[in-house]
Each structure stands twice: as structure tokens, then as C-alpha cells.
């Protein structure tokens, strides 16, 4: 309860355009939200810019937040949407593409259907690194579906793609991730 009160106080300050409150809010969510951005955008500087853009939107939209749902969830949705917009705007990485030539791992290679992997634990940094190796199209669907828990229907609506494309992108993303991790480990063994 105390945290909610503190958060409300900070939000109140932000609504009055107080810099200190804005900084407190930024500091409160910076770490988690930058991690979110890094999963969508492989370039760290761009991720930072997207995060800042996201926070500007958050400050602008704060007055409509009614504290009925999770504040962090609300912040996260704005950041995720900002990241998706940024990818959409980037000319070289159209998100709508089913087959992405920019893919760093050959998707056409025969990859086992089996999704299981000989790994018990994956460090977050390694996980982000692997996700960043995916194409924006696969990466975005993977993030939205697996990490943010959106349904294929919701993803299709968000990205303006069909549900089928969303499912297909997810499946390819998983196959590619498995290959990336497998290669990573074989390199380690060598």
C-alpha cells in the first residue's frame, strides 16, 4: 500500500510538471523499461531514444491513468507500443514482412521441430542477445507473445498482420532462437 501511495504522490507531482517527480518516475521504471526496449531494438542508443520517447508519452498521458489497473503494466504497454512504432518507422526493417532477408540465421536450414532445449538456465543478457539476433519481425512477435503475454489475435491487431503471420513468425522465431543458442553453446565447448 505504501508503494501505491508513494507512486500516487510521484504521479501527482508529474501532473504538476515537477521535474523531481518526473525524475523519480523515470528512475523507478528505467531499468525494467530499458530492458523491454532492448528486446525490441538491438541498437542500444536507439533503445535509449525509444525509452525517452516512451517516457515523454507517459508524462503526456499520465492524467488519463486512473489507478484501476497496474501502473507498471500501463507504462510497459506505452513503452512496447513506442518500440513497435519505432521499428515500423525504420525503413529498413518492415515489421509486416513474413520472410525477412535480413535474418542473421538461415531460416531455411532444417531445424528440428523439437522446441526442447538442453538448457536449464539462460542468463538474461544472453537471452536478450539471442533475441536481438532475430529479425525485427520475428523478434517483435516473440516478445509480444512470449514475454508480454499478448494473444496472436492481439498481436495481429497491433502490428497489422494476420493471425497466421503472427503464429508463423513466432514459430520461426523459436526455431531460430534454438539454433542461435545451440551455436552459442557449441562455440563455448570448442
Amino acid at each position, binding site marked *: 500500500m505504501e508503494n501505491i501511495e508513494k507512486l500516487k504522490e510521484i504521479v501527482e507531482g508529474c501532473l504538476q510538471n515537477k521535474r523531481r517527480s518526473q525524475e523519480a518516475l523515470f528512475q523507478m521504471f528505467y531499468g525494467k523499461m530499458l530492458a523491454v526496449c532492448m528486446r525490441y531494438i538491438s541498437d542500444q542508443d536507439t533503445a535509449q531514444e525509444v525509452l*525517452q520517447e516512451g517516457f515523454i508519452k507517459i508524462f503526456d498521458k499520465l492524467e488519463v491513468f486512473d489507478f484501476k489497473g497496474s501502473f507498471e503494466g500501463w507504462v510497459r504497454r506505452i513503452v512496447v507500443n513506442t518500440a513497435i512504432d519505432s521499428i515500423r518507422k525504420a525503413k529498413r526493417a518492415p515489421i509486416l514482412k513474413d520472410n525477412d532477408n535480413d535474418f542473421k540465421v538461415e531460416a531455411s536450414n532444417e531445424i528440428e521441430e523439437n522446441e526442447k532445449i538442453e538448457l536449464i538456465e539462460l542468463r538474461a543478457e544472453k537471452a536478450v542477445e539471442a533475441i536481438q539476433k532475430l529479425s525485427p519481425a520475428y523478434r517483435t512477435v516473440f516478445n509480444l507473445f512470449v514475454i508480454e503475454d499478448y494473444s496472436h489475435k492481439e498481436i495481429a491487431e497491433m502490428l497489422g498482420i494476420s493471425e497466421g503471420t503472427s503464429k508463423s513468425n513466432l514459430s520461426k522465431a523459436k526455431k531460430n532462437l534454438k539454433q542461435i543458442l545451440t551455436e552459442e553453446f557449441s562455440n563455448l565447448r570448442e
Partner: protein
Amino acid sequence: MRNIEDLFKKSLKDHELPYDKKAWSELSKKLDTRNPGASNGVKWILGAAVIAVLVTTYLFVSSNEASKERQAELTQIEDAPADEINNEDLIKAPLQSDLKSTDQKADKEFDEEICCGDEAIVEQNTIFEERNVISEASTELPQPVYREVAIEPRAKDETKSPLYFAKVKDYCLNSEFSYSNANDKSIYLLSPSENLEEISAKESLDIKLEEKGKYQIGTLNQDQEFKEFVTFMVHQSSVIQLTAKDYLDFENGLPELNVQAFSDHPLDWTLNGEKIAQKSNSENFYLFDKGSYIIKASTTDINGCQIADQVNFYVEKNYNLLAVNAFTPNSMDQRNTSFMPYALTKRDAAFKMIIIDPSNGAVIFETMNADQPWTGINKNTGELVEDKKSYVWKVVLQNPEKGESPEYMGTVIRL
């Protein structure tokens, strides 16, 4: 072996990167360039004001001077230091009344935009030129120029937009209350203790009215001041408080429970959900059978509020006319020398009792008078019945009480 989804999900669930103070200073700079403190609304007002000033200046000048002179004046405004210009121009502006509500801070920014920002001036000139075209093209209808400028601040005036509020009748305390907001913006319910409940646009509010007094439904203005549109009262219900003893009273030979109520109104009583005809605030209930009983009283009070209370009672055993299970014809204690169910000696009830010898089924005694108990004599032989033996008694009531069985049976041992 793990599913790849779970693996990534687990690894990234709480992933957090360290805080970087530099990131904030960059964001802070960005925020600074976005005119700190100026909300979108203020910007619109400022924009409108800038246009108004320029249009007024233009109209004023164009009616008196040649266009060349006009241009010269504009240049003068651009070049003049802040403290020498805008105040005077503002006073001249026809929108002065609309700008009254704009705070000093906004005025300051307004000054800054006119005097200092190159970009702002460029924009002003552009706007000025556009207005110029409009006003010249529509010389027959000069009004729209003013209206368009003036309308922006008024559009922010919340009280002007139509709002719909359904009327609400008075309620009773602790009633469930539901209210739908048909409007496109939030409305609020203000309780007597000034608790504010938001009812979002197109949403409904369902709450329990737990405070007595005046509730108000209305809106909040930009200063967060509440303006009421609909009010209703929540009345404190009066109380029926039922009291009952925790045991049955057999004074009249009946399993009686008296329940009292504190109420000035005629009450509706129910016993285990079944209506009882009585209306008074003190009622007797006969609880013949073993089990749980719920006695409830309800009424409608002066404010039309339904009020009710109930008592729960548990009866441990069936009523069987309070008959003893043994008697001793030869006892020195007169109370034990004969058999008659105790209830029948207390109740003013017409009955017939028979005693049966279970060994042959013969009726060995019968009576219809509580003053003539069975003394142990077999009426067929005229002798005392065998001792240490159980005999069956059976009573049939002619006019049993409501809810009472007309027949009772039991056994009694002659000692």
C-alpha cells in the same frame, strides 16, 4: 529439457538494467525544449492568442495604413525587446477577455514565443499570412475570423459540453447503488463524507451506499472543483432488534419461544421462511421438532426502507408432550405414582390417551381427562400391571396447535 518459451520467459521476467543518470539528463533536456509547464490546452490558448494579436494588429493597421507601413510595424514588433511590446498589444486584442484565465506563467511563455524564438516568429508570420488571405477573401463575412480565434479557449470549457445525468431517487443506507455514465467523459459521485468515486465514460458504477446523507453526482472542472448535477439522499434505516431467550419456555406445556422486537411499525414475521399471520412486536413461536429455526421480522420504515432482523434457534429434541418414561405406583412420592404426560396437565387441550400392553396389543387403560392419570391398573383385569416392563402410551389431540402433530407416542416402564 525445457521449452524455449519458458526458458526465455523465466530468464527475462525480472530483467532490469542499471540506472543511468545520464539518461535522465538527456530526457530532462528534451522535456525542457518542450516548454515546461505548458500543457497542450495552454498551448492552444497561446496559439489562438498569438493569432488573435496578429489578426487584430493586421485589421487595425489595414484599416488605417498602407500595407507597407503594416510590414514595418510587424518588423518593429519582432525587433522590440519583450518588455516594450506585448502587454500593450495584448490589451488591444479583442480576445483579452478570453485570455483572463491564462496564468502569469503562460503569459510569460507567450512573451517568450513572440520575442525570442526564431522558430516561433516564423510560425507567426506564416499564420499571419494565412489569416491575411482569409480575411481578404471573406470581407463580406468578417465574423469567422474572430469566431475561429475565440472558439478555442471556449472549447476547453467543460460546462459547455452537454452532459447527461439520470435522476436518482432517495436510497436507504447500505443499499446497492448502480449508476451509468452515458457521457464521453468521466463523472463523479461525491459521498456525504466527500469521498469521490469516478464513473469513467460509458461505464457504470456499482457500490453499496454506506453513508447516510446527501450524495451528489457531477463533474470536476480543470481546478478539480466538483460541480453537482444530480443529488439524492441516503436515509439511515431504523432498526428492528429481535431478542429471544436461549431456551424454550414450557410454562403452558408447549415448546414456546418468545421473540421481542423493538419497532414502532407492524412487523411481518416468518418462521423458517413461512409467513406468520401476527403483526405485533412480541410473538410466541411453538417449536415442536428437533432442528434449526430462523425467525425473521421485517417491515418498511418511514423512509420506505426495508428493514429486517432475525434470530436463529436450535431445538435439541422433539417435543413429546413432556412425558416421563417411568412411574412407580407404590412410591411414597405422590408425583411418581401415576402416568400422565406433563404437557397434558398444563395444556387446555381435548385429547384421548390409551395405554397398550405390547406383549398382546391389548388396550389396558384409556382416558380423556388429564386429572385421571394411569395408576398402573389394567382395566381388563383390575390389577396392577407387571413391573419392570415397558408399556406403550399413545395420545391423540383433538385440536393440535398450528404445526403440531395430532398424535404422540412413547413408552413408559412400570417400576
